[in-house]
């Protein structure tokens, strides 16, 4: 069967070759022997030339006529500028009627205030108020111009020198608003094509800065050094042209969203191993951590030159407004021309700069304020004193339904629900309930996490207490008793 097929095929092929070759094998045109395949090739070329001369078919481009554009514009209906207002959008925060110190007045009643980040108790400090008054009388309130156009007042330069001297760095630069510091610094250094490794729990200011920088962003697990190491390893493995790409690690010293403290010594080891630069946001640790309040570097005993860029908002421990960024001379000089929040914005009001100078002077002259802050935090978290009736005071370590999720030394004491309701909206409802009841019934003012719809952070929500060196022991006892009582009743059905 197979051989029969084979025979037939060979016979057919022979016939074809004979048919082709036979007559033409004898044809000689113009002295060229014409073989069979030449005819096929000539035919093919003729067909190609024929096709090329045909007009190609392109569907005709019909631009929209004016009438069609008019119709489309008529039809188009925009969404409203704002979504419909739901009930939880209507909540108003309480209005303070006096300074936001450890005790403040809300609705005519005096309340204990754990909602202001007044870590050193400098709100209401006489020396600071005096320096502000003399500054107001000399310079007025505003500076009326950006730094480049006669908005640089000598107090700004004095403040920058003072901060640099305090931190032990060569130079520093002042920004006019706390949150704009970090989201101007990051785009000034990180451009398209650079690599940034950031913690997933950074606050919105950092996220906005990362987004504006257009670099490649990789997040690692919140405060997890193993995850950071794996990420750095993955990014630098086999990357040959890494000399031209700038690489940064962005972390916060004390995370606003969770109260954790970043382990700087491990980060510096990793940074030196993989050649990354570190950008550290010290808004809540400047004036709090370290023996003299110089921040995370002092706390871990790391020389401050190893951190490339340190930024901080001054609206917390220093009780003024604005922010600063400090580092080497190269780092600071670069920002004076390329940081948009510095170049295109009016400078800090001079009285706030003099308040910052007085605050730093106070901190340098009274390091005991740091020990009171630390003992207040310890008291709140763990208790450890017995009151007059010898009742052991347990602090916040045994509040029903809530656990302390922050580092023991963090001035933001962060409590989260032991058992979540499943959605952050539900959690927030419970927590807001607790905060409202504490304000109304016990005159204690605490706050829950506030999260914007634009925030990408997915860490759990909780209650935040900002401890101050100005709080007394009775304040701390009051807040923990109140929290224990209100949490027990509010979370009873939930537990």
């Amino acid at each position: 069967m197979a051989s029969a097929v084979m025979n037939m095929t060979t016979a057919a092929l022979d016939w074809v070759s004979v048919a082709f070759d036979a007559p033409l094998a004898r044809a000689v045109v113009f002295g060229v022997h014409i073989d069979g395949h030449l005819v096929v090739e000539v035919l093919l070329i003729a067909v190609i030339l024929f096709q090329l001369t045909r007009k190609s078919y392109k569907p005709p481009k019909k631009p929209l006529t004016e009438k069609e554009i008019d119709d489309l514009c008529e039809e188009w209906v925009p969404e409203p500028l704002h979504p419909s207002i739901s009930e939880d959008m209507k909540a108003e925060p309480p209005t303070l009627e006096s300074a936001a110190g450890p005790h403040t007045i809300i609705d005519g009643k005096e309340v204990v205030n754990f909602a202001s980040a007044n870590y050193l108790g400098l709100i209401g400090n006489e020396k600071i108020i005096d320096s502000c008054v003399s500054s107001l009388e000399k310079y007025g309130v505003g500076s009326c111009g950006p730094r480049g156009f006669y908005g640089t007042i000598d107090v700004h330069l004095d403040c920058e020198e003072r901060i640099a001297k305090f931190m032990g760095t060569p130079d520093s630069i002042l920004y006019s608003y706390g949150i704009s510091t970090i989201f101007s610094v990051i785009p000034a250094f990180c451009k398209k094509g650079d690599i940034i490794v950031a913690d997933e729990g950074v606050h919105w200011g950092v996220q906005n800065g990362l987004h504006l920088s257009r670099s490649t962003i990789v997040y690692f697990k919140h405060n997890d050094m193993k995850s950071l190491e794996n990420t750095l390893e993955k990014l630098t493995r086999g990357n040959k042209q890494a000399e031209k790409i700038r690489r940064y690690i962005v972390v916060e010293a004390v995370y606003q969203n969770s109260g954790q403290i970043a382990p700087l010594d491990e980060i510096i080891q990793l940074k030196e191993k993989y050649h990354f630069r570190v950008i550290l946001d010290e808004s809540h640790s400047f004036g709090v951590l370290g023996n003299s309040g110089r921040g995370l570097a002092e706390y871990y005993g790391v020389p401050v030159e190893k951190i490339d860029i340190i930024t901080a908002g001054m609206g917390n421990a220093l009780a003024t407004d604005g922010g600063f960024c400090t580092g080497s001379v190269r780092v600071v000089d670069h920002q004076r021309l390329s940081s948009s929040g510095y170049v295109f914005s009016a400078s800090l009001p001079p009285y706030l700069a003099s308040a910052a100078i007085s605050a730093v002077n106070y901190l340098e002259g009274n390091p005991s304020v740091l020990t009171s802050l630390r003992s207040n935090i310890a008291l709140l978290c763990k208790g450890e004193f017995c009151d007059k009736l010898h009742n052991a005071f347990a602090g916040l370590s045994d509040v029903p339904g809530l656990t302390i999720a922050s580092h023991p030394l963090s001035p933001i004491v962060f409590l989260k629900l032991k058992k979540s309701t499943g959605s952050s909206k539900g959690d927030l409802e419970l927590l807001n309930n607790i905060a409202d009841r504490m304000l109304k019934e016990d005159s204690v003012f605490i706050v829950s996490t506030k999260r914007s719809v634009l925030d990408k952070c997915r860490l759990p929500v909780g209650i935040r207490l900002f401890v101050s060196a100005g709080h007394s022991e009775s304040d701390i006892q009051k807040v923990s008793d109140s929290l224990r009582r209100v949490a027990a009743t509010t979370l009873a059905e939930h537990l």
Partner: protein
Amino acid sequence: MVRLPYLTALTTLFSYGLLFAFGQLRDFFRKIIDWSKSTSKGLEGYAPICLGLEDFYTRRLYLRIQDCFCRPIASAPDAWIDVVERYSNDNNKTLHRTSNTTKCLNLGSYNYLGFAAADEYCTPRVIESLKKYSSSTCSIRVDGGTTDLHNELEELVARFVGKPAAITFGMGYVTNSAIIPILIGKGGLIISDSLNHNSIVNGARGSGAAVRVFQHNNPSHLEEVLRELIAEGQPRTHRPWKKIIVIVEGIYSMEGELCQLPEIISVCKKYKAYTYLDEAHSIGAVGKTGRGVCELLGVDPADVDIMMGTFTKSFGSCGGYIAASKEIIRYLKYGCPAHLYATSMSPPAVQQVISAIKVILGEDGSSRGAQKLAHIRENSNFFRSELQKMGFEVLGDSDSPVMPIMLYNPAKIPAFSRECLKQNVAVVTVAFPATPLLLARARICISAAHSREDLIKGLEVISKVGDLVGIKYFPAEPPNHQGHDHKKLE
């Protein structure tokens, strides 16, 4: 509009070319010298902060004329300031302060209504609120940062501007960067004027919406762009846009021009786009009662969807505001990141704005507000007409307190600035990148605190320096005509 003479364009390009060539030559020698020296310790393996041409402009052009910018002052930014003298030992690379100051006429600060220095009505109240509320609340607005001063300010601003409600922030730049992302996101379209401020550009980029630009102050081009984009839909998917916001400014700070607001509003209404008006330089400075560009051009504030402004310029304080309908403000208070994450405005600064607005409205019991407004209008119109008569090329519309004088050539920038300083007049010069490369200018900001003698002295100095430097691009009016006008005004 700027009319760039052909010869000037050529000479300017030639100057920049020469500077560029010299800069490259110096860079080449620097590379050779650095190659022979060892690289600094501790930085091997790290990419440099700026590579190649990224900071070429800074190193080779800006540093030569660094003493014209960032001049420190030792007094309030009022009509006369004490400019601190600086010296340099290394050809302007680093500048050091001395303790000597020179008293100069201030033609550069944004002090439109003269609230910059201590004011008789505002300062006592500011000091009182400082003693009551301290210098900061150390807290975000939604936590413990709202005092009754903040609420009072928001109601007052809403009433002043003519909208139902308002919200305030501690910094004008952050107002724009944090509001635009919450109003519009992916799937939306932002159409902004080509010369908008950096904060608007940043806010638009941060929002994730598509951004298109229309020719500066050109309502017919805006209409073309709107028609084309609505018909086309979103890029690639051609789905209809979710919403469209058109962003314009009241007074453009580098041109001194007023926005063509009535035409732009009518175009936006026709195509159902939302309007966002940034009145940073115009609120409090123009308009019969200081209510800004809407009052000046006769536009009803209800026609503009969102009005934004800052307190830095006319009110002598710091911060920004947004005024819009009650629902929009409620939504912003719920979701705006600057409201939820940034420290609230410092209470003394809030009190300064409240007092300043009360003075402008006349609610302090005197007519100082109306006097200031009339003063700034007279001063601006007088100064501008005199400059134009002298032959300078001055941009901007009448009634606007911002007047740029064109310089063009890069060498004239430091020449003009230093010569004026020698004669005790402090001016601001602006070059690339704040303006296009060929269009460098000196920008004058007039204040209600300037008296007529101050302005005349300023004019004399500028005229002398203008002759010296050669920037009178237009023919001056004949002197007898000028003299006649002088007599009329005095």
